[in-house]
């Protein structure tokens, strides 16, 4: 019996001692060789993507726990999906404890990199790009973790997504930091998620910078506890190029931060400037819905200590131009639709309230006024999101 235990221990030790590195170089038949390596990898292994351009025709996928996929750099190792004919995304991850680092995904037909039910996933030093710039025919999401616990997205760039550059959905315990997101419809979107820290990102040239949303009729709802802080959010004025029907298609061009139907959201110490519509919008979900478990209003939102630059000179919503004219050229940089509870804004700027009283009320019934939302009675600051030791180690 003892010897079996000893043997098992040896076996375990040897497994980690011999964690293999599978190197795949660019060249002919890259699809099958790279996909083969992703299938044959054992837990603990690394799949190393060589420098060069990998011409791929189908989506890639990884379903082995505890595998690192590492390239030679976000400009060096390029997974090129320009000629993709199958599958909904470039790379799909469905296993836990995966690290993706230092490679690029270009021009995937659907989403760039998606991970689903992939706990403790790290996206690090990646580039996901649609190389023709903003275009409705680009894929929806660049970096797309969904239904996962413990998500880290850092040091990455996403350019050109026709929905959100970095989209975290129906997940919890999330850190999004030190990324550059530009020329997407939404720069960063945290949707139907709990406990997220979004900080020290450069968010520019998108339609909307940072969105914190909650939507009805989904398995995980009731988004809450999100901190958006110390980000550079500027000049997100790109015309909205999202296909109609998607929620982000309704985001006005020139939006810095938009909080919709969420609870306990803290927006602080950011630089938010140069937005045609508004630097910060706090609103309800406006569409009709049939879901008794869904709460459409914003609740317990704190906006304070942000550096606010110019905004409101080109409001991209019905009646916006008239409104701006009424305010002498530009509307106040913060817009609140008038719904929700516990909304606190401690900023030395004007706030435009639309004076709506219920979610879904048409804008034609708006009664715009200047509102004061300052208060000392602020929602309690959430604790910082802490990721498991294994992720911290893997990311270093």
């Amino acid at each position, binding site marked *: 019996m003892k010897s079996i235990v000893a043997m098992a221990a040896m076996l375990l030790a040897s497994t980690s001692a011999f964690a293999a590195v599978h190197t795949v170089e660019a060249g002919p038949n890259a*699809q*099958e*060789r790279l*996909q*083969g390596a*992703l*299938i*044959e990898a054992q837990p603990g292994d690394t799949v190393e993507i060589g420098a060069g351009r990998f011409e791929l*025709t*189908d989506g890639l*996928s*990884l*379903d082995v726990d505890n595998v690192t996929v590492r390239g030679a750099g976000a400009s060096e190792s390029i997974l090129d999906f320009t000629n*993709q*004919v*199958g*599958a*909904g995304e470039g790379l*799909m991850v*469905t296993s836990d404890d995966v690290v993706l680092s230092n490679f690029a995904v270009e021009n*995937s*037909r*659907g*989403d760039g990199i998606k991970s*689903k*039910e992939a706990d403790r996933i790290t996206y690090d030093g990646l580039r996901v790009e649609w190389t023709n710039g903003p275009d*409705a*025919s680009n*894929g*929806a*999401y660049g970096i*797309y973790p*969904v*239904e996962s616990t413990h998500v880290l997205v850092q040091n990455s760039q996403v350019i050109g997504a*026709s*929905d959100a550059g970095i*989209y975290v*959905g*129906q997940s919890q315990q999330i850190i999004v930091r030190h990324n550059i997101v530009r020329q997407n419809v939404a720069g960063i979107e945290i949707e139907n998620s709990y406990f997220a820290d979004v900080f020290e990102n450069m968010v520019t040239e998108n339609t909307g910078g940072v969105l914190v949303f909650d*939507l009805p*009729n*989904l*398995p995980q709802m009731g988004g809450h506890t999100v901190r958006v802080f110390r980000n550079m959010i500027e000049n997100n004025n790109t015309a909205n190029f*999202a*296909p*109609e*029907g*998607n*929620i982000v298609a309704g985001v006005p061009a020139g939006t810095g931060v938009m909080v919709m139907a969420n609870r306990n959201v803290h927006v602080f110490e950011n630089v938010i400037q140069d937005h045609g519509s508004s630097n910060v919008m706090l609103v309800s979900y406006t*569409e009709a819905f*049939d*879901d008794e478990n869904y709460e459409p209003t914003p609740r317990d939102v704190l906006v304070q200590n942000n550096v606010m630059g110019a905004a409101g000179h080109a409001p991209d919503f019905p009646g916006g131009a008239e409104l701006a004219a009424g305010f002498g050229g530009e509307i106040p940089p913060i817009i609140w639709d008038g719904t929700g509870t516990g909304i606190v804004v401690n900023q030395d700027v004007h706030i435009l309230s639309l004076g709506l009283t219920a979610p879904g009320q048409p804008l034609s019934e708006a009664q715009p006024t200047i509102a004061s939302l300052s208060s000392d009675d602020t929602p309690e600051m959430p604790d910082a999101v802490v990721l498991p030791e294994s992720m911290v180690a893997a990311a270093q």
Partner: protein
Amino acid sequence: MIRALLAFLGWLAFVSASASTPFSAPVATDLITGDTLPRSLSEFHFFTDGIGQTPNDRVIGYNLNTPLFTDYAAKNRFVYLPEGQTARYTESGVLEFPVGSALIKSFGYPADFRDPDSPVRWIETRVLLRRESGWVALPYIWNEDGTDAVLARAGRRLPASWINAEGETQEISYRVPNQNQCKTCHARDGEIALIGPSARNLNDGQRLAQWVDWSILDRAPDDAPRVPRWDVESDGTLGERARAYLDVNCAHCHNASGSASNSGLFLTYEESNPVTRGILKRPVAAGRGSGGFDFDIEPGHPERSILLFRMQASDPGIAMPELGRELLHEEGIALIRRYIATMDNQG
């Protein structure tokens, strides 16, 4: 004398060679339950004649009332159960198969769809092996001469062509799925699960009782449920046939624990919530897949329903299902169009 001896040795060699022909021994249950990934399909002995696919003992062919569409491919389906074992009947969901069982499914194209006797060129055979740890899915690709099929875990694209029912030559780059793609459709809570062999989809009025007679199913209640054949008008109402079609073609991902669980769009036959079934449900992460429309299904308006839009798309960023559908399923599209066109707001 020597010549006679040589002849005898030759005969002996011939006999032993044929005795060791891969396809003549009983099914290798040990390979099904083992932990290896056999390189060749022949090692399992599911068939006695290779690509001819004559089933070995206890390998039984079957059809489904409403099957999954895969680019108009012809399919051969077989189930294997070890000696002395039966599958367990369940009223909803798929039958429960004991460890050592296997499901075997071949894909190919007849040369000419107008000719029912046209020979089928088989491309691949996929197997699902029931092991102690759960189901394992493996794709095998047939070699040129049809003597064997070889494991291709990373999948492959292969050219396929045929003459379709209208007499036109059809050519596609046929995608043999890789092992992970097998799981994309066969996933339930991250584990591999079966899709087709539910009592209601197997039940043609006779099959379940037959399987009991053949000792591969434990019981077959007289009132076992049954889904209609999607393409036989007399076999069910439009709604029943459309829902059977969506259940088989979409719900393997679009269910609460499948690959599309995050969409909140669940197309299982049992789903009762109209919004969850897509009726006046807005898209979540559809991207270009929305086609500029607001709802998955807008009753009375197939032309504005995202579900039908995606069935009619060929672009891989839009097309649904995501796998195994490069061609449009015209007959399926017609069915769903009629279904949505005549639907009221409660579906």
